[in-house]
């Protein structure tokens, strides 16, 4: 019989459509996996942002991906707010994947976010701490805009959400 652990491992192949280096598992949005006796799988996802347009796409991607495994039964995917997503749910592997995409990973322990906290986001290119935040809103809901005073490079950060 299939186990939730196996499904979780396999879901690492499903990537965030907006940051294709990170899997939905490392992003921390897979909050529940139930496997029935006849291998039906029910996956619960939690939204990163309420208005994230990739939400339905990710539901479909999970369905499609698991649907290709012959040993699995019916695949159902549900989005639920029962577990609140915060950027602290992103795994250490997820932080590396975010960096690989050229973004600064979010700071940890994000329950009390302030502008000052965002100001000091280290540059993902030269790792300098001498950076300034241009705007807490970037090209997607999860990103902020920054500038590195050391390597004179504009960069984006994955913003902390508590």
């Amino acid at each position, binding site marked *: 019989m299939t186990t939730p652990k196996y499904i979780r491992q396999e879901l690492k192949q499903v990537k965030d459509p907006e940051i294709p280096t990170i899997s939905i598992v490392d992003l921390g949005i897979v909050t529940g996996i139930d496997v029935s006796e006849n291998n039906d799988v029910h996956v619960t996802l939690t939204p990163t942002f309420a208005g994230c347009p990739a939400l339905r796409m990710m539901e479909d991607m999970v369905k499609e991906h698991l649907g290709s495994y012959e040993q699995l039964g019916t695949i159902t995917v549900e989005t639920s*707010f029962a577990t609140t997503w915060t950027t602290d749910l992103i795994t250490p592997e997820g932080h590396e994947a975010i960096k690989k995409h050229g973004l600064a990973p979010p700071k940890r322990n994000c329950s009390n976010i302030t502008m000052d906290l965002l100001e000091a986001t280290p540059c993902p290119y030269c790792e300098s701490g001498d950076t300034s935040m241009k705007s807490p809103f970037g090209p997607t809901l999860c990103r902020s805009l920054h500038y590195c005073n050391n390597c004179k490079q504009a960069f984006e950060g994955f913003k902390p959400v*508590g």
Partner: protein
Amino acid sequence: MDSIAALKELLYKIADDQLIIGHRNSEWTGLGPVLEEDIAFSSMAQDKIGQSEHIYNLLHQLGEADADTVAFTRNAPQFHCSQLVELPIGGYDFSLIRHFLFDFAEYLRFEALKTSAYQPLAQVAKKFFGEIKYHTMHANTWVHQLGHGNGESNGKMQESLNYAWNYALGMFEPGPAEDVLITENIFIGETALREQWLEVITPLLEKSNLVIPSQSEWAPIYGGRKGEHTEHLQPLLSEMTEVYTIDPTADW
């Protein structure tokens, strides 16, 4: 009024406020005074409209029509938004002041709702609260900056604050069943929310060199929650529903 009816009334006004302010925010897309601000208002529009959809989904679970039907097929008198959110975007000064007044109220509303006895609402409130924090930080940064900018910027912000003030007080129009919401621990009620809001924004506006109109001039503009709206709402709805009206089954 039973608690389900009271809850629905609360959910409708929250979702309608978000949908309409979201649409107004989106009117800055492509027109923002600087690129970062264009992106900021567009992002906030996306947050608000996305959040409204989740609240409409809660209403759907309580037996109301689905989110798209509710959002796209009602006329102005069926909307429960406050009049503040439906006012045209005006100049950037007005949009920023409205953003400040509205988002601090919404931030505190969701903070209170995090502990609502109605669990599905408490769950989304926790999520929205984290997102709206960014909206309040954005609003406060600009209100502070322009309040301290120069005589012209301070004057414009003050004028907008004076104009928006009574509309903003209208956000806290008491509903028909405040007592039910309070005793059932669904929500703290509009009067308590208004008190919290005044406590938070008063020192922030002072620090921004802006003056809240004197209390003798306070005359909250109510009616929005009961479907009484300004002339500005129906044209907004007509524009927002244009594509849906042409083909309600279209998918995009």
